[in-house]
């Protein structure tokens, strides 16, 4: 186990920069998730940590040691690939034992390490099968088993769940988290799925276009997004964002471009007179008589909650309500917004002001 540090790491493919100076510190035993949309450089960053891509500038340290010049096999890390990358011509047991065999470990030691790993992952009855004879979830487990057997300094996961169906993904999510709690190995995990990131991580690194937008604990990112990108990326359904300005005479009123007045917690004076974006999470509103009039556009009951898209003065607002609502499309409902839970962003820079 070891800590991992990225210090001003950069990477270009030809003249095209893909990682534009990244600083991340990962403590020993931490579960860190790199999350961001496709093409944000998260996988490249992971592959640089693994030694599969070289580093154009900056330093990567594992356990305090600079690994820029080290070959993948010298870094003592294990990686779970998106397509699992199981050796198709080897049985499950041989797949898991491959690294030990290369080291020339005696058979007794290989058994001693493969057996418990297989037990942990429920692979014991499958040890003699070949990868092709396994289901997606089982292959996923074998890939993790291969990593566990190594007992490496750092585990790397590259979108390991994206080839699984939705139900299995939820199950494997819990399994990976449990595994980490048990082994306490430093883990760096890449995904584009913010729900995966929220549910599994100790710390999330939100990346966008080759830079780090924000680093923090899941709820920290959710409650205090640093900017528009993080605010829109974290949370599902996504945060509502409406363009407008503060009321010059009252900093507790926000006037949308369409002329509707929405409530805000007291905004700083610096926000006055600027083009702003009003941020409102779907769950921070209730239906109440005398609220802001909103026309129901779509209503989606899911049983435990009701999701509605409503039109407020020309802007669409998505709301999630923990109650059953008997509204029909076209009807006007009253919307009460929790002013203390709203955000204001600078429309130009995207930075959060409130």
């Amino acid at each position, binding site marked *: 186990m070891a800590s991992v540090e990225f210090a001003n790491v950069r990477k270009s493919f030809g003249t095209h920069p893909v990682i534009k100076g990244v600083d991340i510190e990962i403590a020993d035993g931490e579960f860190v998730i790199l999350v961001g949309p496709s093409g944000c450089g998260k996988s490249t960053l992971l592959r640089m940590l693994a030694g599969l891509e070289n580093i154009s500038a900056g330093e990567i340290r594992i356990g305090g040691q600079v690994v820029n010049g080290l070959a*993948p096999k010298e870094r003592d890390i294990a*990686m779970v*690939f998106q397509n699992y990358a199981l*050796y198709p011509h080897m049985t499950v047991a041989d797949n898991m034992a*491959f690294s030990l065999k290369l080291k020339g470990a005696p058979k007794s030691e290989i058994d001693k390490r493969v057996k418990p790993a297989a037990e942990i992952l429920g692979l014991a009855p499958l040890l003699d099968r070949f990868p092709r*004879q396994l289901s997606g979830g089982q292959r996923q487990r074998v890939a993790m088993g291969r990593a566990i057997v190594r007992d490496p300094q750092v585990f790397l996961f590259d979108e390991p769940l994206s080839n699984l169906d939705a139900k299995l993904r939820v199950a494997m999510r819990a399994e990976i988290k449990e595994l980490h709690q048990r082994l306490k190995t430093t883990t760096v995990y890449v995904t584009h799925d913010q729900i995966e990131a929220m549910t599994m991580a100790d710390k999330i690194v939100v990346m966008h276009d080759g830079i780090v937008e924000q680093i923090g604990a899941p709820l920290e990112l959710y409650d205090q997004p640093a900017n528009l990108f993080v605010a829109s990326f974290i949370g599902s359904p996504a945060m509502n964002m409406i363009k407008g300005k503060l009321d010059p005479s009252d900093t507790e009123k926000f006037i949308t471009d369409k002329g509707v007045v929405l409530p805000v917690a007291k905004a700083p004076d610096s926000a006055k007179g600027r083009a702003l974006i009003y941020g409102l999470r779907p769950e921070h509103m209730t239906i109440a008589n005398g609220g802001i009039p909103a026309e129901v556009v779509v209503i989606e009951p899911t049983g435990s909650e009701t999701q509605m898209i409503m039109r407020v003065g020309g802007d669409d607002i998505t709301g999630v309500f923990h109650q059953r609502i008997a509204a029909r499309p076209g009807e006007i409902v009253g919307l009460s917004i929790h002013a203390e839970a709203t955000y204001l962003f600078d429309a130009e820079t995207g930075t959060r002001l409130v």
Partner: protein
Amino acid sequence: MTMTQTARRESAFGTFARSNTAIGALFMLPAAAFLLCFLTYPLGLGVWLGFTDAKIGRDGIFIGLENYQALARDSVFWMAVSNTVLYTFVASILKFIFGLWLALILNEHLPFKSFFRAVILLPWVVPTVLSALAFWWIYDAQFSIISWSLIRLGWIDTPINFLGDPNNARASVIAANVWRGIPFVAISLLAGLQTIPQSLHEAASLDGATSWQRFRFITLPMLTPIIAVVMTFSVLFTFTDFQLIYVLTKGGPVNATHLMATLSFQRGIPGGQLGEGAAIAVAMIPFLLASILFSFFGLQRRKWQQGGQD
């Protein structure tokens, strides 16, 4: 009453005509006729001729195994057999080694990769007769460029007698065959190499494998199915080779480079002994059958290839 019966009969025929079996048979008919005319008939005729004493211009009569008995006592025939086996064995191994080596090099990230891949194919694309003529000059007793170069370098004093000495001649024709056959092996194996996912190599290198270990434990085992196909074809092509020998040595010196195919032709057409020529050709069948059987078992899906999709 009669009307109904006819209708019923028609519908029964209609059912048959519409059934998959009938349609399948119908569609296979042209192909079957084609195979019968152009494959089975000549092959059958060849086998039949082997049991007759046919000569050019005279229909033979059935003489049973006499041709084969004569061949069994014929030292030239046995030399042709041993030449063919040696030729096939040595050339195939060399083609495999050089072909695999080339494929591995071409699979790396090289500048002008597609250019090199195209160039590699040239020996395979050039008509055999043309390349054989080129080799004829390269191996010429007086004007050989190899002899000339070596003399200039001062390594030898007299030109090498490439095609005049039995062993030199054998080595020379094998070298020419290898040169011609490498592209097929190299390009086929290259195609095979490209089906191996890059992530397997990455996983192996993270698992601590050196590049030799990656080749030994990942590339080679995953390539075996393709190696089996390619080498079967390579062996079949080499075993039945004719053009190269015919242009370069015509089987000489003193039959030293005769292969079964060239001997069969020489006895059958210029020699006029159709029956004997056919018998030699038929004698190749067991060897070819053996190599096809070998590939049949070699090509069977290995256990790891069975089961679902990736």
